[in-house]
């Protein structure tokens, strides 16, 4: 997948080099996820590419060792000390990270919430990421397309301490209600593989016949559920997963999973680094920028989320590229005054 990214990067860079301008004092971007997680892996490449393409001082991927708010804060603080002057942060907690984000902003550095949003009000220039609620909503819609009326679906999702989880739960319920389906169970707190394995399998073992569809809105549950369905060998149950874990992709190819909601981490990292640099070189965010708004913020930019089914899953990288491309091409004109 890294190779794929490099291709994409090359393509983009060709198209965009002219528009890249060098800041007088070089921009040092830090891309900081909430903790170690495969989802963010694409950021490293994206940062490196952006740094190359737009001649940034650097755009480094810095990972806190654990999913700990405290540790992420400590890391951000040390990054300030290290002289980074632009921050792309996945908020460890939509509310809890606001304070540190504001402090970073006070140092004059542009701060963007990436992949997940900060809850308004905050000093973050904007939030670019997957609209978690929306993605769950669309995913459920895609699922219901496959199912008859009055379908029974289950929802596997992540940690309850993460407010996004609540958003997802609501979104799925909403979509189901509209589609005349019923969410017969939500299983949460399964971001760790062991409990996920245990609970999902236990549930399927007991209710395999009562369930028509599965929607998963977190990485690990998607992986585990795909495996579970493969294990049962039952293709009756329709499942829509999330993200691009190889297990999920493979399951889609083999027809155990209907499709997955792709997100666009690479695009987030690449575009984010670019914008950071533009902002430092004097650009400002348009007052009338057409931000979307979601449950958390009114300054939301959807980094795009597409449904990839069996047919388009093979070049899901391609589909992610195209989103990125579209978003990137008119980003400056749409959101920035330069």
């Amino acid at each position, binding site marked *: 997948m890294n190779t794929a990214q490099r291709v994409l990067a090359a393509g983009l860079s060709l198209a965009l080099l002219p528009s890249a301008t060098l800041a007088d004092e070089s921009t040092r971007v830090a891309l900081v996820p909430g903790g170690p997680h495969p989802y963010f*892996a694409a950021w490293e490449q994206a940062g490196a590419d952006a740094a190359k393409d737009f001649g940034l001082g650097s755009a480094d991927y810095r990972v806190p060792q654990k999913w700990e708010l405290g540790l992420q804060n400590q890391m951000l603080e040390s990054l300030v000390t290290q002289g980074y002057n632009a921050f792309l942060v996945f908020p460890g907690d939509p509310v809890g990270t606001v304070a540190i984000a504001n402090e970073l902003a006070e140092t004059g550095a542009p701060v963007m919430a990436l992949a997940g949003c900060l809850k308004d009000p905050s000093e973050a220039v904007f939030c670019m990421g997957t609209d978690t609620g929306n993605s769950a909503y669309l995913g459920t819609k895609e699922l219901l397309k496959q199912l008859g009326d009055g379908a029974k679906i289950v929802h596997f999702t992540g940690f309850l301490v993460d407010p996004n989880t609540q958003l997802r739960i609501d979104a799925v319920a909403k979509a189901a209600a509209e589609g005349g389906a019923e969410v017969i169970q939500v299983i949460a707190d399964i971001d760790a*593989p062991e409990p996920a*394995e245990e*609970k999902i399998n*236990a549930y399927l073992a007991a209710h395999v016949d009562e369930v028509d569809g599965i929607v998963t809105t977190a990485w690990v549950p998607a992986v585990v559920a795909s495996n579970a369905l493969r294990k049962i060998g039952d293709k009756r149950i329709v499942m829509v997963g999330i993200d691009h874990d190889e297990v999920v992709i493979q399951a889609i190819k083999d027809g155990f999973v209907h499709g997955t909601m792709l997100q666009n981490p690479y695009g987030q990292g690449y575009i984010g680094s670019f914008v950071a640099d533009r902002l430092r070189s004097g650009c400002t965010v348009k007052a009338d920028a057409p931000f979307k708004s979601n449950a958390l913020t009114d300054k939301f930019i959807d980094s795009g989320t597409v449904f990839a089914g069996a047919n388009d899953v093979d070049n899901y990288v391609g589909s992610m590229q195209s989103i990125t491309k579209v978003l990137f091409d008119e980003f400056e004109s749409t959101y920035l005054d330069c």
Partner: protein
Amino acid sequence: MNQKFWQSEWFGPLLITVTAIVIVSSLNPSFLSPFNIQILLLAISVNAMIAFSQMIIIAIGQMNLSVGAIGGMAAISFGGMMEVWGIPWPIAAVLSLSIGLLAGIANGALCAYTGISAFVITLASLSIFKGINLGITEAQPFYDIPDTVKSLGNDTFLHPLPWLVLPAVAAAVLLWYLLFRLPLGRAILAVGGNEHAAALSGISVPRIVIVAHAISGLLAALAGIMLVGRLQIGQPTIGDDWLILSFAAPVIGGAILTGGHVSVAGTFLGVAIVAIITQVLVLFSIDPFLVQVVLGGLILWAVGINRYREVRAHRKIAAGAI
């Protein structure tokens, strides 16, 4: 040995387990469906391994906070060797096991020869091992797991008995044999029971401590490897949340944290109880926000019952002694 079976520490857990099974299955017959049993056994097999790797340390009156870290390290090295170097899985398994073994020996040696409490040592080694894990994987799972391993991790050899049950049962039997029939095992319990006396009788306490930690490391590694098979991925997060279970199960099973007394059967049942609880919460679709509460409550209840039985037994003894 001469005590009646209903006085033995594993009777309480057994009672709880049986009642739980009866009640649950009456309320929800699918609970005893072959597939569900298979799922249950899969969970129990791996968790039993985790609990045992802590139990053996509790036996010498210490704590091993690094079980999860060792397990995770073994798991990812297992996955890594197969994916990156294409080593055939049996060899990879053996190598990962020996990594766990070495990690355990390192823990043991440090505890034995520095005299620093195992708590502190394993606290430090916990983050060392976990760090190595992250350093190698950069949080990326290893996906390239041979189908043999996957099927061993999930399929049954005799419906509904999954393959993973075999190592678990083997470990249980061997541990029991070690702790209650072999001088080495007795020496382990002796050190836990009265270190000074053990030393006076020519038992080399440092050696025993090292052995115990080595076994602990080995079992943790085995658990990690089994999980790779079961999850079908070399997940770097394997082992992150073993700690609570690893203590809860032996203690529910009647182990004494100050050492010198553990029960293999009890621990196994302790694992079973936790597994059943987890399932029940799902089966009866308890409000996800309440799951933790129920879990905690049930742990309290379980140890409470055990305690009550103990106290009554002691009163009897006291009455007899005076």
